[in-house]
């Protein structure tokens, strides 16, 4: 029997967790909302859980640790659900204990995995904001669809999400627009039944978008072996890229600085983060421009220049492609709508 939507609005609870080690990915029957503050001795931030009755559980972990923090999770990964991790801000590194998978989270990318009973740890970097939104999706969500669908060629992610196979998907990236939608979603208050409906709608949309990505882009199976040292170097390359966003170095320069060849750098970057170096750079630039424009801090031309676009019309075109609106419209809308106050 398909689960019943339960749209009752329950009061949000705010509690202080003793540690960050507890993170239940279990899907429950009822809707509920819970926010836990990050303990003060560790840093700032919170973990917000949104349980959408019977189908999806969202957990948003938004943290700025004082020092680099390694969190060892006590909870095992669920058997009846597939888990996704979407990075909304910053970066982090997950290590799974039994299967030895390593997930490189960076802003905009996501991984999906069905690894029942495994557990792991995550490293958040000190003094940096990391925000990871976990999706725990019940296998029942997709099995409700018509039987005739079974005959079509299924994507790797479809099999993962219906629990037919186990493993971790290669990373992919979401559009800037989708990331912004998710940021709004996890920070806006959920009080009425229609707020719950909106959250459910957006969560389903993201799941469908991810499935679509894996259908369109055939998985590149020709992975190259990367040593622990290589991974570290590629992480450094990413930091250099972000640090010098306005005047980015060439790939050859970066490769030289970190000490790997350009082939390995390009290929390795794609393998770890699910995107190319310059697509990542573009996405980060546009994201920063979006924040500058939305906050009213800068006008469109200033923001374009700030993030390294010399040509405003090229900037507008790229912005439109990433966010679905012109930068001008984005500025106007932010002026008219008073900024939402974080409710829960």
């Amino acid at each position: 029997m398909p689960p019943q939507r339960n749209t009752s609005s329950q009061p949000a609870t705010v509690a202080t967790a003793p540690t960050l080690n507890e993170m239940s990915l279990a899907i429950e029957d009822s809707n509920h909302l819970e926010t836990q503050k990050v303990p003060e001795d560790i840093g700032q931030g919170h973990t917000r859980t949104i349980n959408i009755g019977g189908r999806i559980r969202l957990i948003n972990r938004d943290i700025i640790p004082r020092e680099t923090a390694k969190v060892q999770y006590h909870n095992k990964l669920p058997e009846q659900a597939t888990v996704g991790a979407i990075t909304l801000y910053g970066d982090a590194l997950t290590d799974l204990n039994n299967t030895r998978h390593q997930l490189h989270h960076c802003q905009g990318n996501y991984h999906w995995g069905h690894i029942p009973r495994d557990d792991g740890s995550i490293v958040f970097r000190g003094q940096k904001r990391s925000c990871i939104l976990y999706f725990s999706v019940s296998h029942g969500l997709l099995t409700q669809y018509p039987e005739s669908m079974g005959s079509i060629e299924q994507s790797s992610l479809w099999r993962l999400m219906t629990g037919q196979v186990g493993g971790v998907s290669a990373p992919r990236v979401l559009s800037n627009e989708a990331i912004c939608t998710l940021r709004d979603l996890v920070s806006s208050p959920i009080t009425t039944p229609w707020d719950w409906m909106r959250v459910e709608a957006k969560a389903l949309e993201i799941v469908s978008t991810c499935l679509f990505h894996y259908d369109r882009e055939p998985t590149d199976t020709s992975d190259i072996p990367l040593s622990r040292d290589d991974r570290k170097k590629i992480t450094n390359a990413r930091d250099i890229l972000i640090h010098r966003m306005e005047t980015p170095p060439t790939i050859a320069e970066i490769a030289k600085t970190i000490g790997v060849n350009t082939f390995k750098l390009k290929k390795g970057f794609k393998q770890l983060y699910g995107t190319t170096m310059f697509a990542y750079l573009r996405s980060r630039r546009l994201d920063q421009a979006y924040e500058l424009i939305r906050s009213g801090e800068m006008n469109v031309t200033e923001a374009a220049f700030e993030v390294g676009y010399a040509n405003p019309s090229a900037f507008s075109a790229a912005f439109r492609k990433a966010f679905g609106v012109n930068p001008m419209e984005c500025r106007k809308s932010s002026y008219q709508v008073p900024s939402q106050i974080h409710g829960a």
Partner: protein
Amino acid sequence: MHGEQNRYRIYDDARNKIFESATSKSGIFTEATRISKAVLPDNLGTFESCHIHIAKGMRFAFESMTTNRKLVVQHTREEPDHVIGSFFLSGHFQVQPKGTSKLIPKQNTGIVWSHTPGLTYTSDLQPGQTSKSAYIIIKPEVFSSPQEHDSAVKNGLWDLFKGNSVGTCTAEHLSVDDHRILKNILSFNPAKPWNWLHLESKVLELVSNNLSRYEQVGSSKSGFAIPPHDIARIEAARDILIDKMDNPPSIMKLARLAGINEFKLKKGFKQIYSDTIYGYLRRYRMKKAYEWLKSGEMNVTEVAVKVGFTNPSAFGAAFKKQFGVNPAECRRKFFSV
């Protein structure tokens, strides 16, 4: 599933019935078919009618008709256990809830939400004209909550969903967002299973957007708090507007007269009076015109001028659009008695 039916009747311009569809029970929607199409005679034009069974208790339907002659198409939808959102995208529709004589006239586009024993849609078609409509059909149980946590929520549409009330919500206009979402839904391709997930997400989004529209205006949840001195100024602006109804100032001028900035005035006005400044003025003018005509003190032209219409025929058209009768008839009706 008993008693649910969809029936089409088509009349020519002399009101002779030229087609009647067999009763089609919505019970034909099985898990396996998911999509069903109604068949209408193709010698009269192009008809497309499609029902999509999205999930348990949730369906989406779409209809599009283009005729080659003048026709009246009557579609009766009897689904007493469902809340139905009817979205009119183009054409001329009238909606009549079963068992009442109440007609909900729609101009070109709009939305009607209802939870009634049945609905009859009457669509007047001109040759070559296309009428398009979409429907969301939902069992109230899909959203009902076992606990009554939402008793504090005041929302006319939510009352229909909770099944506490039976009836029809006031018709609303289609918003830009509604159009965007409907366009997205109508491009649905059933071949890929994730598109079904996407479809469900868009239907939920549409319902959610519509619910927030029926949220009580002025409650602390919606909008922002208006400082008391601004409220006084917005009220003053309203008084000026009404006072100068025959020759209303521009919004910019109105803002200056009331001593408030234009943005605050527009935003605050909408929050206090749940309408735009000119929308409010239009309604107020019509209300006054109606009262004055009824009193019999003035003739139609005098009333038109008094409420700010320089062109009497424009006044006549606006009046008829609002009340369904032209002003002269209205005056006769009350004054001759």
